């Protein structure tokens, strides 16, 4: 199994060529501000756009293979291609091997130099004033997860481009085999979690609860195992409809009783599995098959859902659960963090994880855009990523201080195509209002 490593990511669209990263690198690595000595090089121009010449820490690095002195090695630990000054003979062959100008002669020392990610705290990243550089540390997830067993069979029957399979596999790998999984009617069993006609997609005990009683059934399971002294995780992967509408009572009851359950809601904002009908989590203005678009009567056209979405995770906060968090598959690192905490919390009480999960089919966007749509939802503050514990209160985990206009999110999909300017301003207004509301809770937690 291949390893994954932390990496410095560059968003060309955000770079204005200021060169602060180069100064920071040169300062950190050479003690001079001479940008030519920086190991990160911003190239290009304002006209053509800026790009990066920076070691990508290749998996199959040419510089390493051409080095005659064994001075370059790829660390299996960090993934960084390490340069050993004591072994290097200054032959420069590596600069010929690398096609990306990522190892070059440092005239100041006469030796080659390359990025070593500053041992995991790259100086360039915080120096960028425009967040064009980020240090992606998801490697831990992939490496650890890669070693854990995938508890779903290969080939679940999800829609093309759906991220729920990703979520299911990751979540199950993380919780591990000592788990009983409840997947109430919806997309998750639709994908084959419980299976069809005698074959199942899951390697751990799994069942369909009713749409209405997921939390209650899990409570019974968990309690019985506790009674006999066995540690078994009780996990639900449920849809928003079953959780916020018809299953809300049992969810609320279990939360109030602080049952030791991890309840994950995959919020695709509607009854997508049954043909994309409205749920109470469907946002205002959205087309669904039960809030269709039409010319209406008396000059009142039907323009999608006329009410705002219920904010289920905030309602769960008001149950004072052991842990409540929102997450997004566009931010797996954040999600993993929360999954870890939710699992721990579920050992003592009710843990609730609300994952915003775009639906390619029901929301009407191209199948390769799922993660992008999920990301836009966060970047516009249409949804917010936060977590709550009774001790620390509510805290943002990825605050977006400079949100994009909500239209950036809305225009990414077909279900909002019909929106009138009034509807759009209603939605933008709600985004602001929701943000203010959550901020107030954060504020209270700080106070």
């Amino acid at each position, binding site marked *: 199994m291949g390893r994954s490593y932390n990496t410095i990511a560059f968003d060309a669209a955000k770079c204005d060529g200021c060169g602060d990263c180069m100064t920071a690198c040169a300062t950190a690595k050479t003690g001079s501000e001479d940008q030519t000595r920086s190991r990160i090089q911003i190239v290009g121009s304002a006209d053509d756009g800026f790009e990066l010449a920076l070691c990508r820490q290749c998996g199959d690095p040419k510089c390493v293979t051409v080095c005659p002195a064994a001075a370059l090695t790829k660390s299996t630990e960090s993934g960084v291609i390490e340069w050993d000054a004591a072994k290097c003979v200054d032959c420069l062959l590596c600069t010929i091997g690398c096609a990306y100008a990522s190892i070059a002669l440092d005239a100041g020392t006469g030796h080659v130099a390359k990025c070593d990610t500053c041992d995991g705290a790259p100086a360039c990243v915080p120096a960028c004033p425009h967040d064009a550089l980020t240090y992606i540390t998801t490697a831990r997830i992939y490496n650890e997860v890669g070693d854990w067993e995938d508890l779903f069979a290969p080939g679940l029957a999800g829609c093309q481009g759906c991220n729920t399979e990703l979520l299911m596999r990751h979540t199950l790998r993380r919780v591990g085999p000592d788990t009983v999984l409840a997947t109430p009617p919806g997309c998750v069993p639709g994908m084959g979690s419980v*299976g069809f006609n005698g074959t199942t997609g899951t390697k751990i005990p799994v069942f369909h609860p009713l749409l209405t009683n997921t939390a*209650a059934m899990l409570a019974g399971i968990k*309690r019985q195992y506790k009674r006999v002294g066995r540690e078994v995780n009780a996990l639900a992967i449920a849809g928003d409809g079953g959780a916020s509408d018809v299953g809300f009572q049992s969810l609320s009851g279990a939360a109030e009783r602080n049952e030791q359950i991890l309840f994950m809601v995959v919020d695709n904002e509607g009854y997508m599995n049954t043909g994309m009908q409205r749920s109470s989590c469907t946002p205002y203005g959205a087309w669904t098959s039960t809030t269709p678009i039409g010319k209406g009567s008396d000059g009142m056209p039907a323009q999608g859902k006329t009410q705002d979405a219920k904010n289920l995770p905030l309602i769960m906060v008001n149950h004072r659960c052991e842990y409540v968090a929102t997450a997004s598959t566009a931010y797996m690192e954040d999600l993993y963090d929360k999954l870890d905490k939710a699992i721990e919390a579920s050992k003592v009480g009710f843990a609730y994880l609300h994952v915003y999960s775009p639906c390619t089919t029901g929301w009407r966007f191209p199948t390769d855009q799922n993660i992008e749509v999920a990301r836009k939802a966060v970047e516009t503050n249409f949804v917010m990523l936060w977590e709550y514990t009774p001790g620390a209160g509510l805290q943002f985990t990825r605050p977006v201080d400079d949100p994009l206009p909500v239209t950036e999110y809305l225009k990414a999909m077909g279900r909002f195509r019909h929106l009138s300017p009034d509807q759009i301003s209603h939605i933008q207004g709600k985004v602001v209002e929701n943000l203010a509301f959550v901020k107030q809770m954060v504020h209270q937690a700080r106070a």
Partner: protein
Amino acid sequence: MTTATVETPNQTKPAKQKVILCEGNEAAALGVALARPDMVAVYPITPQSSLVEHVAKLIADGRMDADIVDAEGEHSVLSVLQGAALAGARTYTATCGPGLAFMFEPYFRTSGMRLPIVMSIVTRDGITPQSVWGGHQDAMTVREVGWVQVYCETVQEVLDTTIMAFKIAEHHDVMLPVNVCLDGNYLSYGTSRVELPDQAEVDAFMGVKDVNWHVALDPLRPMAVDPLTGGSGGKGPSTFVRYRKGQCRGMQNSLRVIEEVHEEWAQRFGRRFAPLVEEYRLDGADYAIMTLGSMTGAAKDAIDEAREAGKRVGLIKIKTFSPFPVEALLKAMNKIQALGVVDRSVGFRWNCGPMYQEMMGALYRLGRHVPSMSFIGGLAGADITVGHFHRVIEATEKLVTNPAPAEPVWLNERD
């Protein structure tokens, strides 16, 4: 309320038993405690409430070792138990009327999953009209859902049957949920002398607990519980069909198991209850009346009086209502020429009592016409008195010679 005679012809070795005075709901709770369930889930509703209060108190006092879940509604009550049962727990709850109606979604499913959950129905009439009083309408409404349903006549029978219900439910040939029905008001609150079996004796009677051998949610033996079946062809529908057929077979098996368990109970504890159908003074009877539940006490008194007055009348009591004990009933019917059936609920579709309708179905197999009529009484807590039963006896007697009326007789209509 009338107490019935406890017939104990085979009182071989009466076990050491404590005698107490208690109401039916408490007797049920004591029976539950003796059966040692792992988990009890509760939600209060009149006239069941004192039953779960008794259970809660028994647990609180350390007289019963079970996890109690105060769920937020009956729907979750049964759902919690389903989960627990799938994890290997012996489980119990009680409900009635609107609670049972609210529970219906998981209720239907319990028998399909073959979970041996025991649930008392402290029977209550159906609303609307608004009422919080006894009547069999709740239990009758769900008689077609694959639960075994037995009706008790006395407080003692409530206690004993509650224990037996676990053994019946968990029998490997049955594996079905069981409702122990006790009449709201009349049995729930009726206080009488009760013999309390010894815990060790009950333990010996119950044997080893093994409730999820057939279906489990257990990481040690992972399985997918209840995958989708069905469709228009191939393996899907046939899987479903075999499930259903198995459920029906379990129901039929339960008739035998109920008899065996009652027999064993009688052997161990010296109390013998007719397991399926009780024949009361049928020998030499030309006609009979048919009863269900606590009304039977008054009915038996009326029969005794009528006999003394020279009427050739007997009584048939149904204990096991689901599955319907056709063979046992026909054996009794063979002895008589006419039958009056007293129901404590209505069958809206046939304009008669539901038990009457069931009886008519069985009757077809008798191969002989037996004139019969339907009486409906005791709705919404109304008392069916000895006097009422004399009216029933009189009307039934006429059937031997006169044609049967098309309409049912509503006993409490003008009380």
